[in-house]
């Protein structure tokens, strides 16, 4: 194909977007609406995940050591803890330290004397994966020199359930919306191409090759996809910023508690635009190509 022909076909494709403005408007509208729905569901899911993740990170497990352990044995226990997986932020709290903290917090006269220290030596630590908390606690209990393990197993199982629900719910919503969007978009593109079947037919009779006919549709699909992606991206960005500012202004207790966990749009903007653009172009171009093919068999 000649360079001038290639340039001409690209020009025709871009011009087609404006010439068939009604159908272009419909295609862009449908694509944008679908991307907005999917994007919103995605943003909600990401934020809930971030908040749940934050709560998850706050977990604390306390491992109490046997009073009879000498310094070497305590060191061995420390080494054992460090060699275990799913564990981080291990901190040794001596019985003296605990007594001091307790006495500081206790009312005058209710504290313990140093000789009557009832507290054992302990290790404070966090687990990486809360869903494996029970398994990790069992392992901790099995270590030599450990007398007791305190772990937030009930809260952990709730958080794990919430996290799973968010993941499954979010993915399902995005998946269902994506399928609905695909069906609507496919029909919109189908109507667009159907309206121009005569045009395709004429092109075939004057000797146009399939590539010659398809290229403008390819360009058109790409332009429509990119326009819809850009529109959806900026609306989502604006809407998200507005919502965050509004909630910040409202100073609700829940929002203030998790304010730092709200994902800034800028941090995922590039990824979001990339996903929108890829999705838009893929659907625009793919859809056009599939439906144009049907009318090329003349």
């Amino acid at each position, binding site marked *: *194909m*000649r360079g*001038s*022909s290639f340039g*001409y076909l690209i020009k025709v494709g871009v011009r*087609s977007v404006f*010439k*068939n403005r009604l159908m272009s408007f419909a295609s862009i509208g449908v694509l944008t609406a679908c991307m907005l729905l999917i994007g919103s569901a995605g943003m909600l899911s990401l934020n809930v995940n971030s908040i749940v993740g934050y709560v998850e990170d706050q977990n604390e497990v306390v491992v109490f050591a046997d009073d009879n352990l000498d310094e070497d044995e305590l060191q061995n226990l420390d080494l054992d803890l460090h060699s275990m997986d799913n564990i981080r932020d291990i901190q040794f709290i001596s019985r003296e330290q605990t007594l001091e903290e307790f006495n500081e917090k206790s009312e005058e006269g209710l504290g313990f004397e140093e000789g009557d220290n009832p507290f054992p030596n302990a290790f404070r630590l966090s687990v990486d994966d809360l869903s494996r908390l029970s398994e990790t606690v069992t392992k901790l209990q099995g270590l030599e020199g450990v007398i007791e393990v305190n772990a937030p197993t009930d809260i952990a199982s709730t958080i794990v359930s919430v996290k799973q629900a968010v993941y499954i719910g979010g993915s399902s919503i995005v998946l269902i919306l994506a399928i609905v969007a695909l069906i609507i978009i496919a029909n919109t593109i189908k109507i667009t191409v159907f309206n121009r079947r*005569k*045009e395709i*037919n*004429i*092109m*075939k*009779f*004057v*000797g*146009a*090759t*399939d590539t*010659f006919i398809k290229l403008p549709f390819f360009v058109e699909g790409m332009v429509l996809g990119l326009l819809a992606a850009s529109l959806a991206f900026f609306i989502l960005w604006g809407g998200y910023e507005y919502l965050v500012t509004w909630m910040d202004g409202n100073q609700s207790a829940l929002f203030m508690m998790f304010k730092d966990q709200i994902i800034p749009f800028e941090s995922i903007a590039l990824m979001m635009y990339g996903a929108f653009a890829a999705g838009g172009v893929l659907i625009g171009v793919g859809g056009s190509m599939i439906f144009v093919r049907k009318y090329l068999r*003349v």
Partner: protein
Amino acid sequence: MVVYWFIMINFTDVKKVYPSGTHALNGITLRIEKGEFVFIVGASGAGKSTLIKMLLREEVPSSGLVEVNGYNLNKMRRRQIPYFRRSLGVVFQDFRLIPTMNVYENVAFALRVTNVANRDIKRRVPYILSLVGLVHKAKSMPEQLSGGEQQRVALARALVNNPQLIIADEPTGNIDPELSFEIVDLLNEINKVGTTVVMVTHEHDLVQQFQRRVITIEQGRVLSDTAALGGF
């Protein structure tokens, strides 16, 4: 079968049965030489449309041989079809102009598909439009033209590639009788410079006025093939 250089169209015992079971052509044998002007006439359902579809390689015969302009259409591969069609000029009853392109672009499109350079398009299109008397309507959109004008644009598009064969499928079917004469007269002029013209029509008056070869089709067969005055 030997195809002679002077043969433009060769149908040998061509039969066409559609999947529905309709027998559209029942053994058509005909030859049209280069430079001829031939009317193909026949009642509705006689097989004229199928014949045209065969000529354009829109349909392939169930049996028999179809050769057009040296191409064996039976053996033609799908990707060769566009190149074959570029050697023809086609005019349809419903004009088939691209509604989103103006007159100039509609005609130029036939050149663009053959990768003709822009400077040649700029030279050739106005010339062809002047031949059909529509140079002043170059920027008009098809919807702004009358039926006769639209058909002249379609004719210009068919001519712009200098085809050796023009196939006109009821080109006067959608236009006024006085303009019909004008269109056939244009085809007649084109034929005088050596282009083969095959025109399907059911307008007896036109056929009688132009006194050309007439092939009559009936029930998928050639009923008569006459070289001169009217009589069908």
